[in-house]
């Protein structure tokens, strides 16, 4: 898209694009807020890790991808899934453990995947997606169709050795891998700066990769960095590293308070600062679009309402689903169930 000149304006393709970005962010925000609420009210199976506050990173990057570009995600993967075009219905059904789930209830929150949309999936192993994305990038290179493979990972994951290994292989083979480090300053209950030496971006620079560190709560900034990286992939120019500086508003997982039992790793003031209207990626983008005359209050209310309705419908869909099919486990693992 960067190659076509898109004229900014209050209507037309540019404005439509902006609205789409906002819609996608709203969907993620409402979906995750609903998950939080459901986890609190009635409980959800397993652990739920929310990316509230990080929507601009997921949407900014994925808005540059085609349906058959590849993407791997993390334990905090709902946003990436929805941003890459995954459906909230089948994601919720998955999290509810239903047969109608995108992974038929076999994976759950930490493993949402949709191969028909290039979504290789979330991953319960910190750093687990790095080498997988690199392998998908190898496949993309061999396909020769200009596909890219995006790998989302956290600042905590950047301390795993596979980060370096995957960057090395991607560089020497000029693979179309895009390493997107979502730097929210936190690794579970540890402040990342206490366990991280130097600047993460310098690690990528050491492999001779183009590097961009952007405000991860500014969806346009993320999108423009991602666009450049995707274009390099399309042209066969090899991997890129993008760091989106952002913050997670919610706990590491929704049951966090129980686990912490009074302990803490951050202050309420810190959370509030990131929650502020002018910092939160959604309200900030909303204000910008209002200011630019692209999306006024009425239009916004309409978009917001539509996102909420989608989420409501997803809950209905998930609740109505059949429980997972137990026999499927054996079928998928090539094993005859024991008598």
């Amino acid at each position, binding site marked *: 898209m960067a190659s076509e000149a898109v004229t900014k304006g209050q209507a037309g393709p540019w404005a439509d694009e902006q609205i789409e970005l906002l819609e996608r962010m709203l969907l993620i925000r409402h979906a995750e807020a609903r998950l939080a609420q459901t986890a609190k009210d009635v409980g959800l199976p397993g652990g739920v890790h929310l990316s509230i506050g990080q929507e601009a990173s997921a949407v900014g990057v994925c808005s540059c991808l085609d349906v058959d570009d590849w993407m791997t995600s993390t334990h905090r993967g709902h946003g990436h899934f929805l941003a890459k075009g995954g459906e909230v219905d089948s994601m919720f059904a998955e999290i509810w453990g239903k047969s109608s789930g995108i992974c038929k209830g*076999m994976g759950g929150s930490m493993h949402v995947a949709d191969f028909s949309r290039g979504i290789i999936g979330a991953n319960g*192993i910190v750093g687990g997606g790095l080498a997988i994305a690199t392998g998908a990038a190898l496949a993309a290179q061999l396909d020769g169709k200009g596909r890219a493979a995006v790998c989302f990972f956290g600042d*905590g994951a950047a301390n*795993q*050795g596979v980060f370096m290994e995957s960057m090395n292989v991607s560089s020497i083979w000029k693979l179309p891998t895009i390493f997107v480090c979502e730097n929210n300053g936190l*690794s579970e209950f540890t402040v990342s700066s206490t*366990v991280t030496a130097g600047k993460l971006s310098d690690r990528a620079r050491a492999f001779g990769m183009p590097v961009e560190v952007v405000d991860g709560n500014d969806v346009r900034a993320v999108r423009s960095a991602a666009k450049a990286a995707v274009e390099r992939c399309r042209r066969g120019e090899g991997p890129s590293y993008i760091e989106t500086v952002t913050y997670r508003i919610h706990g590491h997982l929704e049951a966090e308070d129980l686990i912490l039992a009074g302990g*803490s790793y951050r202050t309420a003031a810190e959370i509030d600062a990131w929650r502020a209207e002018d910092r939160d990626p959604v309200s900030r983008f909303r204000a910008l679009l209002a200011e630019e005359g692209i999306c006024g209050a009425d239009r916004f209310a309409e978009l917001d309402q539509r996102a909420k309705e989608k989420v409501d419908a997803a809950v209905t869909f998930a609740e109505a689903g059949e429980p997972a099919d137990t026999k499927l*486990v*054996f079928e998928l693992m090539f094993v005859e169930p024991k008598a």
Partner: protein
Amino acid sequence: MTRKRYTQAINEALHEEMGRDPKTILFGEDVALAVFGDTRGLLDRFGPDRVRNTPICEATIAGMAVGAAAAGYRVIIHMLFSNFIYTGFDAIANQMAKLRLMTGGQIDLPITVLAVYGGGASQAAQHSDSNHPVLMNLGGIDVLVPATPGDAKGMLKTAIRNNRPSFFLQASGLGAVGGDVPDGEHLVPLGKASVAREGRDVTLVNVGSMIRATQNAAKKLAEAGIEAEIVDVRSLVPLDETTIVESVQRTGRLVVIDEARDMCSAASQIAAVVADKGFSALRAPIRRVTVNNVSMPYAPNAEAAIFPNADDIVRAATALCQPEVAAA
């Protein structure tokens, strides 16, 4: 005796052993705030030299344990979920398990690795493995699966204090379970199974996390007139073959209950031992109640269907007590 939770028993053992020996150190991811509660309070009490949050890098955590132990420290590391052991597996399988032999015994490796294993809470495949069999096969590493708070405390203290590398595996389903823990200094020897219930008809060998299902099964069996003897194996390496074989000599029948996948499970090892050393006492086939050769699915109903339960055990034990089974 005081009633305590499993996690609390572990926490006490860590406090006591770190208090006892200033060369005992502990590190791992988030040990300060204690993801599972087991390391709570250690940083405050023993300070940031001896208790350290590490970056996320299991390969280096495990490798550092080997280096620090070889250089004279008593090392405790936390790997969080047992699935993350795989990420640090080279340092475990190629270094920790082998370095003492390869150096001709120049060093001891007093290392204790903590990890939480097992399913039952819809944590899905990457947070639910019961992978003690993988560790058992490495050689040179003790593998401990206590099933009660008392054993957890006593075995952990023994493991930390001795000079062998050991994995202390906590069943995720048992963390909140309470039990009696002896007051004062409490050490449980490793390599000793415990007879948790006496019975003459069939031996149920329990491996770690399955203890409640095993106990429930014994109750149900008793109602049906079958008296089961429960041998809680407690330690897999070293394995107390004697207690197991002796029990089978009394009962003539064996069911082994293990949450691991069946292939090369602890259950299979125990069955193999008895098929050799206890053969003449056997009056029926040896049955294993294990997880099939599959990973844990996420959906609660699917997980429950895979997970071994008391009814599975009852079914297996009951069958063995029917005369026609031995001839089958």
